[in-house]
């Protein structure tokens, strides 16, 4: 999917993501959900979701992601999938697999679900035992078997970070034993809970390099029966990612409370009032709302982006990352080495380097990992 250029009226929101709930049985330290998810208002009702689907489809939305939190905690997931399928969406379920029983999968198949992406997460608090955790492996194996039984391609997504990246070989071996056809090794992106835990999660360059080498060797051995994608963390790049193909170009996300977002992480961007599907139509949200128009085109750009010959390729990178690192969402994404704030990224990488090489006996100032749960929630804590 490519994005239109300039300030012209954007095309339709081709990619609709419904974050049906922030509820989740897991507590992943790298979750991009907001760190104050407990303060987010009540979830939309089934009929609201169905109206969102109808309106978005009428505008031309065609790919549908169903995510969360864990979308399977919504008992109306099958109803939502059935409606989406009837409307002509291509439906993608993004799940941890927790709660994916055979009756539910059967129901989803009947409802017309097109695709399942099984995320491989840590379901325990014992991060270092993660790979040997039989609970995790048994759950994923059982779900993988079901997914194959209902003739879906086996697509695994594994989030990598400093604490598991050295185990890429075991992770890939596990994926192979599960019969995975596609494996995405996605390095953590630093938003939400992952941002809070960035200092603990950012790998060192050497770790990253080893993981890439292992992946390349594995790829060679298994050939085309298991396709492996390795997504390098952008902190190690010198040009930013064309985030969302530009905000408000193809992606429309709806949060559990009905807030419409041009990126899942955008809720944190200051100075924007995001519209809510409870009170506004999808058409007015997409085409007319100030929040969705804010970062369209190039008028909002500052130097060095404003005059950069590459601005049409990466759109200045990620607004959320620019805001998190520099305090101004209109700045260039500091991943770019043309950004005057690029040192903020390289310094974080250097700190990760130092932590990797520090002799283990030396007292290293470590901060504890913050698990995504209600006790640590910034919105509900007293």
């Amino acid at each position: 999917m490519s994005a239109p250029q300039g300030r012209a009226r954007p095309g339709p929101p081709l990619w609709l993501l419904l974050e049906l709930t922030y509820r989740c049985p897991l507590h992943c330290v790298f979750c991009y959900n907001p760190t104050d998810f407990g303060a987010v208002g009540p979830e939309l009702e089934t009929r609201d979701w169905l109206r969102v689907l109808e309106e978005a489809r009428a505008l031309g939305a065609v790919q549908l992601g169903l995510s969360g939190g864990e979308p399977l905690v919504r008992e109306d997931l099958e109803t939502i999938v059935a409606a989406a399928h009837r409307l002509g969406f291509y439906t993608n379920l993004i799940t941890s697999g927790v709660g994916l029983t055979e009756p539910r999968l059967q129901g989803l198949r009947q409802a017309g679900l097109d695709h399942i992406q099984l995320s491989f997460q840590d379901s325990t608090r014992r991060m270092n035992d993660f790979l040997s955790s039989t609970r995790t492996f048994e759950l994923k194996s059982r779900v993988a078997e079901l997914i194959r039984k209902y003739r879906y391609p086996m697509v695994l997504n594994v989030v990598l970070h400093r604490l598991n990246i050295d185990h890429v070989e075991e992770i890939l071996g596990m994926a192979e034993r599960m019969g995975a056809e596609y494996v995405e090794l996605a390095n953590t992106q630093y938003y939400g809970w992952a941002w809070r835990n960035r200092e603990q999660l950012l790998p060192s360059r050497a770790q990253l390099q080893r993981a890439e080498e292992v992946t390349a060797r594995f790829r060679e051995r298994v050939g085309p029966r298991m396709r492996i994608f390795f997504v390098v963390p952008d902190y190690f790049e010198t040009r930013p990612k064309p985030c969302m193909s530009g905000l408000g170009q193809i992606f429309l996300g709806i949060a559990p409370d009905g807030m419409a977002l041009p990126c899942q992480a955008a809720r944190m961007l200051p100075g924007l009032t995001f519209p809510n599907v409870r009170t506004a139509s999808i058409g007015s949200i997409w085409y007319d709302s100030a929040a969705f128009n804010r970062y369209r085109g190039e008028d909002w750009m500052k130097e060095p982006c404003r005059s950069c010959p590459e601005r049409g390729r990466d759109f200045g990178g990620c607004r959320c990352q620019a805001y998190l690192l520099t305090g101004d969402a209109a700045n260039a994404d500091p991943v770019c080495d043309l950004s005057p704030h690029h040192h903020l990224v390289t310094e974080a990488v250097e700190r990760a380097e130092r932590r990797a090489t520090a002799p283990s006996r030396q007292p290293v100032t470590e901060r504890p990992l913050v698990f995504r749960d209600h006790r640590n929630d910034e919105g509900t804590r007293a």
Partner: protein
Amino acid sequence: MAIIHTTVRPVIGGGFRLQWEPAQEAHVLLYPEGMVKLNQSAAAILTRCDGLRTVADIVTDLERTYAITGLTSDVCSFIAMAVERTWLELRP
């Protein structure tokens, strides 16, 4: 690229879906988290790939519909490309 025999019956690959999108005024091929917008000739071929018609049937139909001849090699090379990208599967 594989050589396509005119006796095989191409069908849209598993996980792919072909449909008309009014908002884009085009046929699109949908697959997990992605989409290919098809030009008219690609759409004309793919909409005929139903797993029942042979490549020869498809060529005949296209030549009749568009009142032209000599489409066999173009259609075969498109189908070969589509098979390589797993958009199409071939049935005997």
